[in-house]
């Protein structure tokens, strides 16, 4: 006991504390990497397998549908992975286990604790999306790819991941633990199917009302952005519009989510 100094004195730099918290998340994810893989890959994998491979092989979908589906599923992986990574644990941590308190009491501003959550969830989503590429090649045999579309591709993957994380921050701070099941099924399923991951948005012109509904789902712009980057021949929403809408959605959701985070963290 005597060997322990009474105080360490100086407050560490914010960057150092931020990195330590990030390191904790990386350490925990690394320790359960197979679980992480299963959690993020299974859903897009089966969607890709059934809609892209099985239905195509049986002749229920047209040639080329798999190529159209693939960018949409990458967008879905990015958005859903970061949303799940952030929202579920956050609801539990704030509402039940209080695990987050040790980080809230670290010498770091409360906003940075939220920022770390968003950054880490986005990183996980980017990794999950990258893993989907070899899986797509394995399942489909070939995937649409265009090196000239790479800058837009990368930008939209990153923005899609941030979008999901921001949405996760909003949900994670708004939802009470006893409502977690109902809220997530009410939000999750519609988000999954109105985000244009399974169909290109312009083709919905024949179904005008649904086109309007999907236009309200920011995930649509991630799906369309990736289509624009990988298969520009298919009609799509122009990439710059996608990027602008994504940025605006992220900004708005982060503003709401950060306020929610402060309200949960500080009375």
């Amino acid at each position: 006991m005597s060997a322990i100094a009474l105080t360490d004195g100086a407050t560490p730099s914010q960057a150092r504390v931020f990195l330590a918290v990030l390191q904790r998340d990386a350490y925990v994810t690394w320790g359960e990497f197979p679980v992480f893989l299963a959690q993020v890959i299974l859903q897009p994998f089966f969607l890709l397998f059934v809609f892209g491979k099985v239905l195509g092989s049986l002749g229920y979908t047209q040639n080329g549908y798999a190529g159209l589906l693939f960018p949409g599923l990458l967008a879905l992986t990015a958005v859903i992975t970061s949303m799940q990574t952030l929202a579920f644990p956050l609801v539990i941590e704030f509402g039940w286990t209080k695990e987050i308190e040790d980080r809230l009491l670290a010498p770091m501003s409360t906003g940075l604790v939220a920022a770390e959550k968003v950054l880490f969830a986005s990183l996980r989503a980017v990794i999950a999306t990258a893993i989907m590429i070899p899986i797509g090649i394995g399942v489909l045999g070939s995937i649409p790819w265009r090196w000239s579309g790479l800058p837009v591709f990368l930008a939209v993957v990153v923005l899609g991941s941030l979008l999901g994380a921001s949405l996760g921050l909003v949900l994670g701070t708004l939802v009470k633990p006893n409502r977690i099941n109902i809220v997530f099924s009410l939000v999750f399923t519609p988000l999954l199917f109105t985000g244009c991951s399974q169909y290109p948005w312009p083709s919905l012109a024949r179904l005008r009302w649904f086109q309007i509904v999907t236009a309200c789902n920011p995930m649509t712009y991630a799906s369309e952005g990736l289509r624009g980057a990988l298969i520009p021949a298919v009609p799509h929403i122009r990439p710059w519009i996608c990027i602008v809408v994504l940025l605006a959605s992220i900004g708005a959701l982060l503003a709401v989510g950060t306020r929610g985070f402060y309200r949960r963290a500080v009375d």
Partner: protein
Amino acid sequence: MDLVKRYPKSPVNAVDGVSFAVCPGEVFGLLGPNGAGKTTTVGVLTTRVVPTAGTATVAGVDVVRDPVRARSELAVIPQRSNLDRALSIRGNLIFHAAYHGVPARVRARRADELLDQFGLLERANVKPDMFSGGQSQRVMIARALMHAPTVLFLDEPSTGLDPAARLFLWDRLRELRDRGVTLVLTTHDMDEAAELADRVGIMDHGKLLALDTPEALMRSVPGGTTLELTTSAPDAATADRILAGLRTLAQVERVDRLGSEDGAVGSGAPAQDGAFRGGELRMRLYVSGDAPLLVAPAAAVLGQNGAGLSDVKLGIPTLEDVFIDLTGRALR
């Protein structure tokens, strides 16, 4: 200081103008019933509650203006475990230290020392899921000490602990005090406050009602310490002489004659009819000082009147009595 906290949608202030200072190295107890405002007060001091008005400093750092620096000076042991379930016990300690910028070399050594000291070494690599309340609390204290805080806040530390765990906790807390760590604990346990705290603040309805050492608080209860004597006297005149003699003793504030134990007047209550008809004589002395020291002089007074002492009872007030005296009711 002059701390006020009103929660939205609440008509009253949860903390209503509370002011106090805790000296470095002191053990300070905030005592009061649930809902008294203790936890909110500690919430402000630990940067988790923003006060509606007033200022507060911890180790000289303003918790409202510079919460980040304040957090590096303090540590909090909550009532319920908030350990990181994704990490082992050692992981909890190591990462906590990392959050506080403790260098990597120091972290590992300090973790080993604390795990050993808190009897946690053999379970160091276990995750805290299956830990009991007492074990979790030990881990949380060890974790808190990883960044060597100046001030340690404990919320209801012995609630839910078995007697052995409670004694272990008290021993550890005394060791911390001896090392100069300032301890602030909230409790509704009178024994704990009296046992551990150098000074106790009694709170109710958001106000600090009294603040002093447990001894001084207990002495402050009017006629707090009592001495009950039983003797026998042949007649009323002798009884009056005895009472008068006792009243002249130093430190005796008041002497009441009580009804006889088997008499019509209830035990312990002052006699109602005033007439003493000989036989057993019971008296209660309200004492300002140390009651046991008065037994011998009192016996001498009885002896001068030819009476012997047949029974002595000491009444020492507890913090519970202090609380009842201040609020007019028992702790909820």
